[in-house]
């Protein structure tokens, strides 16, 4: 009885083996192409989060400038000025390399006329609440901005 059943089912066994082989091929291909960590947190590769976090910094952030034995004097000057909330790197550019190693990269010289007029040249599109706008050319009378406005206490 049992032998006869097996004989009758032989084509089914073959079919099942074929299906199994197909499934194994699929799993093999899938394991090869789906990257590690894919789908753990959503439809993406979890490692991508770390890859993006590992990108290099260029701006050090203002908190790293005014530390003791660095630019504490400048930080103290700036703290009393209306520019106190302007980040150091807003004018001096990205200086993460300098913050990491003060020896290697110094702040580039600042083109003060260009820099000051970026914010303070009068422009009708600037908000009316921003009253510190001047017509640069008649205002400066051919002298550099810092002659009257000290670089780190410009509003004094």
């Amino acid at each position: 009885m049992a032998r006869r059943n097996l004989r009758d089912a032989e084509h089914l066994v073959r079919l099942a083996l074929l299906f199994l082989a197909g499934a194994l091929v699929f799993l093999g291909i899938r394991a090869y192409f789906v990257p590690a960590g894919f789908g753990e947190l959503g439809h993406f590769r979890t490692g991508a989060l770390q890859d993006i976090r590992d990108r290099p910094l260029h701006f050090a952030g203002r908190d790293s400038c005014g530390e003791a034995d660095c630019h504490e004097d400048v930080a103290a000057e700036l703290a009393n000025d209306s520019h106190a909330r302007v980040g150091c790197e807003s004018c001096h550019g990205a200086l993460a390399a300098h913050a990491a190693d003060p020896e290697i990269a110094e702040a580039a010289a600042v083109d003060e006329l260009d820099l000051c007029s970026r914010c303070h040249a009068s422009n009708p599109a600037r908000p009316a609440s921003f009253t510190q706008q001047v017509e640069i050319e008649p205002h400066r009378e051919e002298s550099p901005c810092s002659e009257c406005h000290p670089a780190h206490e410009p509003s004094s």
Partner: protein
Amino acid sequence: MSLDRRQFLVDGTMFILLTGAATRAWPFIEQGRPQDAPGYDTASHWWAMFIDVEKCIGCGRCVDACKVENDVPPEPYYFRTWVERYTIPPVDPEDATAHQLPIVDSPNGGRDGFPAEPPIEGAKSFFVPKMCNHCADSPCTQVCPVGATFQSPDGVVLVDKTYCVGCRYCVQACPYGCRFLDPRTNTADKCTLCYHRITKGLTTACCEVCPTQARVLGNLRNPDDPIHQLLREHKVHVLKPDLATGAKLYYNGLDGAVR
């Protein structure tokens, strides 16, 4: 690993019903914490930004800082953030029914500032900083066919550059025009909300250099974050709310003409 018959059937059914990726995500979803990531505590962050149009003076320091910080292609038409100047033509009393469109200009993305001469003399004009809205239901993420772009568990829309096939679907899908194809890698590129900075306790490069605090980054999951007070005290608006993208750039003082 021991596997009884019951567990085998459950796992097998799960595998057949769900995709392979969903099978692995299921334990996290089941425990109600799909946001858990290793390392940095993503579960306690949900990033957003407050942008005050009434404080933006159009200096373009944010555009410059973004390009430097994120190594954005130098050509003048690739930007992760840029500043637009809107000029609204005044209503002509002689022709009051005429439909007038605002004039928008953004020379070099506003990176070098804006010319003092307005496109229309005496018209209302203002600056609007633009960048990725880091939508909670982002269209760009939904259309990605390979899972290369995604929303991180702390609410930042990111691109896995090693996995992107460069099909440009996301570039077309973004209603805010915030994506482009990086010509060097032929992969999609966009604002990462300086994910490499904010996960280290720094603010974004654009917020770092903004001289007027027109941009403020905030963590909505931190009850002590100043952004809560800003949102409470201002009448804020998001761009294209009708698209239900769940945009997380909250604009104060946004004119209805801004698109």
